[in-house]
């Protein structure tokens, strides 16, 4: 069974072919890293997976059903920047997904419900090592803390698929190593499928269960779009062995 099925998709912008004949089956619970030269269409592919962009030809199915035409709860995202809300504190950012779910008209929890939600949010912050920063605003956080917050916030919505677009590329190597460990732990704890675009090959291999390389065969030819040139299995998901049996 496959969680995401990308079937023969093409993306053409004003007669420039960006993606060509991309077909990919992504298994439930896998961690797919996508690498490739700048401008080859990695972000474009990810944007199609989050329904921010639509393919010229082909189709994408999530558990056998075509993707809805707008972003939805089951597909969480973390971008390189602007992933958290600047007007909410760290706690407020993590609280938001619960508030949106619980309160349709106000989008805000009050009273004892809020208290309980806050406890849950604090537990999540503890988990990503941000509990001490709960009352800060994002602008007061370092880049690494902001990305940890973005991960925590995305996870609060309990997505089935998490889409990451160069989430760690603005971080220094030390911070990046820490957040790799965190990402891996979070992925192992949930049953999420993760698709991550990155420029960093070693990051792609360290985190992914599978590495996909996108490349244009002739970079200067606008009629030939990027395709999948390599599809490298790295390692199976540790827990999968038990789950598959």
């Amino acid at each position, binding site marked *: 069974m496959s969680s995401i099925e990308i079937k023969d998709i093409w993306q053409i912008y004003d007669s420039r072919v960006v993606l060509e004949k991309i077909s990919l089956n992504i298994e439930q619970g896998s961690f797919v890293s996508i690498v490739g030269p700048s401008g080859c269409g990695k972000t474009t592919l990810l944007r199609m997976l989050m329904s921010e962009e639509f393919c010229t030809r082909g189709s994408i199915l999530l558990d056998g059903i075509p993707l809805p035409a707008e972003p939805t709860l089951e597909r969480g995202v973390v971008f390189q920047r602007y992933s958290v809300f600047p007007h909410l504190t760290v706690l407020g950012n993590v609280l938001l997904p619960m508030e949106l779910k619980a309160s349709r008209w106000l989008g805000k929890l009050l009273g004892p419900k809020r208290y309980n939600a806050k406890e849950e949010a604090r537990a999540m912050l503890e988990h990503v090592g941000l509990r001490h920063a709960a009352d800060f605003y994002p602008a007061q956080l370092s880049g690494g803390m902001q990305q940890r917050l973005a991960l925590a916030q995305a996870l609060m*919505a309990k997505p089935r698929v998490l889409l990451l677009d160069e989430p760690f590329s603005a971080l220094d190597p030390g911070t990046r190593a820490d957040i790799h460990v965190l990402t891996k732990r979070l992925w192992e704890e949930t049953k999420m499928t993760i698709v991550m675009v990155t420029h960093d090959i070693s990051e792609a291999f360290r985190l992914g269960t599978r590495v996909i390389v996108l490349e244009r065969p002739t970079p200067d030819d606008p009629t030939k779009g990027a395709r999948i040139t390599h599809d490298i299995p790295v390692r199976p998901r540790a827990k999968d062995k038990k789950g598959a049996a």
Partner: protein
Amino acid sequence: MRLINRHPGKHGARLLAVVPFIALIVLYLTASAVRHAANPMDKLLPTLSQMASAVNLMAFTQDMATGDYLMLTDTLSSLQRLIEGLVISIGISFVIGIAVGMLPYLRKLCVPFIAAFSMVPPLAILPILFIIAGIGETAKVTLIVIGTAPFMIRDLIMRVEEMPKAQLIKAQTLGASSWQMALRVVVPQMLPRLIDSLRLSLGPAWIYLISAEAIAAQDGLGYRIFLVRRYFAMDVIIPYVIWITLLAFIFDVSLRLTQRYAFPWFAGAKSQ
């Protein structure tokens, strides 16, 4: 050292800030003294003591006909008009600005119309307002609204459109409906920006207020200035102008402080 790298010290900075004010005052007093030496009856540049006695008459003496303190009644009526106009303007522009900024259908429907409407010179339609609404308060308040709302609406639409698209995508992936996004993501981030917009609109609001009062009113700061102009009463006009400037300045500062304390995240987010 290069000129762009030279900074005045703390005291130096303060001194520099007051220099132009002092220079203006000295220049005025000198010119006034020179004119009064030549002609003791000069009305064009009244001396400080002449202005003080005029202020005393306008602000601290009951008017013989009505028993009012004129400067106080003028100030109150002007402020009432100004605030009414601005409050209506803020209300309209906030609702329209956010709705239009967020919804593509409304954008297509409204943006060209608003762009065209904002080109209408408000003062040119003042006579229409007087004809429709009479020369009462409604026309003056409406003029302020017409003069300031289109700018604020357009400004807000742009601010909403300028929000990083990633934020709205993110909100949707967290399950937010359009309404929830408006309430929890867009509105809170637009409030401090509305204050910026309002600060920029204060100048035009005063212009339209004073123009409307100059043309048809029984009281108000603008009315008074244009009334005493007939008697060349510079000793009243100058203190009134200073008073209006001071009021505008206080408005501006209090808006700035409101923004700083009510939206502590804003300064940091803006500089990112």
